[in-house]
Structures are given as structure tokens and as C-alpha cells.
């Protein structure tokens, strides 16, 4: 869509775009290019020259067991937390959309968790799920040694998944509810007239009509699970125990800023960038075209 009526002073037009362009050049394109350059060279942490090494950084990363472990942990985290957050949100939104008494109230409250900073809720969950105090301690009293995120990798992963999913249920809920409410009431009433029950209507009318939202949220949740997980991991587990929760962004941070391996961190950034670009392209090409029932 284009405007028919426009202004003719081109210089003014370009000037309006200049602040944004300067910003994205300085803080987006330059660093992104820098990351590519660094990933192909060996950088000294405090400046002072660099050596061209071609794809060596990628080779050494892709042959490191730690890195594959980090990818595996990220994928497990992404899959389980996305699945959990989306399923719970879908159920809650579908039920809220039935508009029984009190649904207004739920519509307000269920959104709250999304407003909270990931590190703040991480600290809250760290307490709630602490093995010696809080709530899992009760379980530990009954079965000693049942739960300890500080020692057991699976427990630690479960903790960060719980914290992340809790926040994103709120987010997904907003979108699912908006999608449900966009479905014309007359459609559902017509189906009810034809004798289909609530479950049948959900399966054959509402669910197909919200598939675009489902796929959209799927991509957003996976991408967010790569980035927004940093605060949760840093506060709850610091990547431990034994790297069980060393997710990709956390590894970039700890290799780059704690290990001062700029080249290795840059190469990891490039791999993560490619992963996210592929996901985004997938979203725009595939989903926007194929999944459209209206």
C-alpha cells in the first residue's frame, strides 16, 4: 500500500529518517558486521592486532562437546517451555473466551506475569524451588534428596523451564484471547444451531481459525526462549550444575566476557543469528502464506 498524496521536499524526507539510520548503523549493522569479522579472525581481548584464521573458530566450536551440549540444552529448553507455555495459555484463553461470569477478572489477572522482569521472577522461583527452604523443601522432607537444582541437572532445567513458562503463559494468553475474540460470534452460534457441542466447535471452528496465531506464537516463543532466558539462567543456575543449563546466549556471554574469547563468542553469535534468521524467514515465508484460512 502506498500513499497517493506525498510531500515533494525530498531532503526533508531523508532528514526525517537520519536519526534512525544513524542508530541502526552504529548499534546494529556495525556490530553485526563486526561479529562476522571477529568470527573469522583471532582477536586479542585487549586490542592489539588480530590474525585471519578463516573458519577455524567455527571448526573449533563445532568440534567442542561443550557447545553441542549447550545447543542440546537450548533445544530442550525451547521445546518444553514453548510447549508448556503455549498449551496452558491456549486452554486458559479458550475457557476465558467462553465468557462465563468472572472471565473479565481472569482476563486482567492472567496477563500480570508477563510484566515481570525475567531476573526478578527467577529470584522468586529460586526461593520457591529451593531445596532447603520454600516449597520443594516440603517434598524433600518426605523423600530426602528428591529435589536439588544445585546438584541435579534435570532439576535445574526443570526450574528454569518453570520460571520461563510462567512468564510466557501470560504473553501467549494475550495473543490467544485476541485471536479467539476476533472470531465472529455468528459463526459459533450458527454451528451451535446445527447441533455441534462446545468441544466440536472448538475443534472444527475455533482451532482452525487461530492456527495463524499458534504458528506466530510458536516462532516468537522459540526465539524468546533463546534470548529472554539469559536473566533466568544467570540468577537461578549460572549455567550449572555441570553445564546442564548452559544455554546458548549464556554461553556466548560467559565465553566472551568471562573467558575473554571474543572470536569464539562471535562465532557462536553468528550461529545463533543464522538460527534466528532461519526461524524468522520460516515465519514470514511459510507461515504467512500457507496457514491462512480466512
Amino acid at each position: 500500500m502506498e500513499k497517493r498524496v506525498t510531500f515533494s521536499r525530498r531532503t526533508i524526507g531523508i532528514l526525517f529518517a537520519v536519526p534512525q539510520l544513524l542508530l541502526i548503523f552504529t548499534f546494529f549493522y556495525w556490530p553485526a558486521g563486526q561479529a562476522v569479522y571477529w568470527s573469522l579472525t583471532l582477536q586479542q581481548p585487549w586490542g592489539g592486532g588480530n590474525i585471519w584464521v578463516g573458519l577455524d573458530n567455527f571448526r573449533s566450536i563445532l568440534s567442542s562437546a561443550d557447545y553441542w551440549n549447550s545447543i542440546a540444552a537450548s533445544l530442550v529448553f525451547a521445546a518444553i517451555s514453548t510447549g508448556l507455555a503455549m498449551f496452558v495459555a491456549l486452554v486458559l484463553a479458550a475457557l476465558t473466551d467462553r465468557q462465563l461470569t468472572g472471565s473479565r477478572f481472569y482476563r486482567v489477572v492472567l496477563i500480570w506475569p508477563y510484566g515481570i522482569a525475567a531476573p526478578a521472577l527467577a529470584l522468586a522461583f529460586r526461593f520457591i524451588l529451593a531445596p532447603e527452604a520454600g516449597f520443594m523443601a516440603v517434598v524433600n522432607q518426605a523423600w530426602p534428596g528428591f529435589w536439588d537444582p544445585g546438584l541435579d541437572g534435570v532439576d535445574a532445567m526443570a526450574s528454569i523451564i518453570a520460571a520461563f513458562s510462567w512468564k510466557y503463559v501470560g504473553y501467549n494468553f494475550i495473543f490467544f484471547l485476541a485471536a479467539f475474540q476476533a472470531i465472529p460470534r455468528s459463526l459459533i452460534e450458527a454451528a451451535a444451531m446445527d447441533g455441534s457441542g462446545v468441544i466440536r466447535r472448538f475443534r472444527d471452528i475455533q482451532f482452525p481459525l487461530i492456527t495463524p496465531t499458534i504458528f506466530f506464537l510458536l516462532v516468537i516463543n522459540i526465539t524468546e526462549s533463546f534470548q529472554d532466558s539469559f536473566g533466568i539462567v544467570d540468577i537461578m543456575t549460572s549455567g550449572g550444575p555441570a553445564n546442564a543449563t548452559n544455554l546458548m546466549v549464556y554461553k556466548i556471554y560467559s565465553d566472551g566476557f568471562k573467558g575473554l574469547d571474543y572470536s569464539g563468542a562471535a562465532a557462536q553469535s553468528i550461529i545463533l543469528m543464522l538460527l534466528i534468521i532461519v526461524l524468522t524467514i520460516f515465519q514470514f515465508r511459510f507461515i504467512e502464506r500457507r496457514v491462512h484460512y480466512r
Partner: protein
Amino acid sequence: MVERTPILNFVTHLVLFIGFVLAVAPFVIVAIAASHNLKDVNDVPMPLLPGSDFWLNIKTAWTTADLGPKLLNSFIMAAGVAAGKVIISALTAFSIVYFRYPGRTFIFWLIFVTLMLPLEVRIVPTYAVVANVLSPYQTILDVTGLSWLIEKISGVRIALSFGLLNSYTGLILPLIATATGTFLYRQFFLTVPDELTEAARMDGAGALRFFIDILLPLSRTNMAALGTIMFLWAWNQYLWPLLVTTDQSHATAVTELKQLIPNIGGIPEWNIAMAGTLIVMLPPLIVVVAMQRWFVRGLIATEK
């Protein structure tokens, strides 16, 4: 709504109520834990009735993590990002919607691409740029040979250097450098009727006049939505402030939470930690509750 389904209605109420409990429980637990003394908070099970040390714990957390100035820093950063986004996105959208100039489509795509890569994945080089924000331009001058030329002609050696670490500018600017708001405005500007522009032009208004007196007042709803969403997003940033503020004086409230994690060994001071968490959680929660309408609207509009 259409027919009577008593059993299903019961299940609906039950499930929604469980969802409500799960959504609110962490807030309640944090508040209760923040009100106990050191012994009670570590009791198993923790007493579920509030204790009496609430204000004491809040005070201790406030001084331990030095939250006063930190909350102010968070506020400055969040407000700065929100204001910057609202203004810069409006300018850019105006430029790409209301003007025809060569390279317009190219600029559109340049901005569009920034949606793909979040700050977290290009964090290391962005940090390097912020450490000396003029380094890109220095490198360009060096590589093109311009700095050699200038040195030959004027005898002045060019060494551009301007660090933004530990400054509000360094905190704010990189967070503004994305396209989120631009497309929100673009969608809206495209729906503004052409007749309005024609009428304004006939009355002798130039581009600037039209933008300030007609377009901006019309976009107030969008500004509120975008501002709310960006304020929350910036307030909740963690990784970026953690890196940029090596000096305590510019640290934000969210990064300060790390100081409150009880150290291993000794009885963990969870009551203080939870009091701090509560303080840091509260401002965004208030924004969400007070600005719910704009928040929901902004979320849905910026993402789609």
C-alpha cells in the same frame, strides 16, 4: 453462552481458578516470605500467614542493594528508551510513508532487517561499539584512507574516541536501535486518509507542519501503546545493563537483584531477597495494571 452446559461450566471455572492461583501464587509467596524473620522464612514448611517483619526487611533490602538510586536509574533508562522509541519511530515512519525519494525501499528493508536480530545475540560487538561509539567512523576513515589524507593535509591525527560505558546514553541508545515502533506507526499512517493531507497542503502546510499539527495528535493512541510496551521492555532489560554499567552508580534495579541472592553457607536470608524482589517487581506490575489497555494493544500491534 449458546447452550446450557453445567458440567463444562464447572470445569471451566475450576481450570480458570487453578490458572489464577498459579499466576498469582508467586507474587503472594514473595510478599509473605518478605514479611518473615530469618528463622521463619527458612522453616519447612514456611508459615503461610504473613509475619511481622515486612517493613524491616524492605528497609534492609533497600539499603543492602542500594535500591533508591538504582530504581531511579531504571526509571531514567526505561523512560529514555520509551521516549526515544516513540519519537524516532514516528520520524522514520513519516519519512518512509509520506515521501518519495530514491532508496526509500532500501531504507525500509534496512530497518526491517533489524527486527530479526535481538541485542542478546550480537552482544559482544555491540559492547565494543559502546566502549568507543565513534570506532565505526574511525575505522571507516582509516580504511578509506581519509584519515591518512587528513593527516597529510592538516597535520592533525584523527583519533575519534567517545566511550559510552557507564552512562545513560550508553544504556539507552542501543536499546532504541530496532524497528519495533516504526512499523506500528507505518501501519497507522497508511490508514490516515489522503484527503487530510491534501486539505493540509491546500491550506499551505508544509511537511513539518503537517507532521507536528496533524499526524502526531492523531497518533496519540499509538504513542501511549508503544510507550507503555517499551517502558516495560526497557525496565526489564538485564543483560545489557549488566555489561554496560561496570560502575555501581549507573546500575539498574534489575541487575542489582544479583546482589540479593543469598550466598551459600550460613542461613540464607531469603526474607531480604524476597523483599528486594518485591520492590523490583512492583513498578512494572503497577504499569501493567494501570495501563492494561495500552499494554495489550501495544503488544499485539508491535508484534504483528
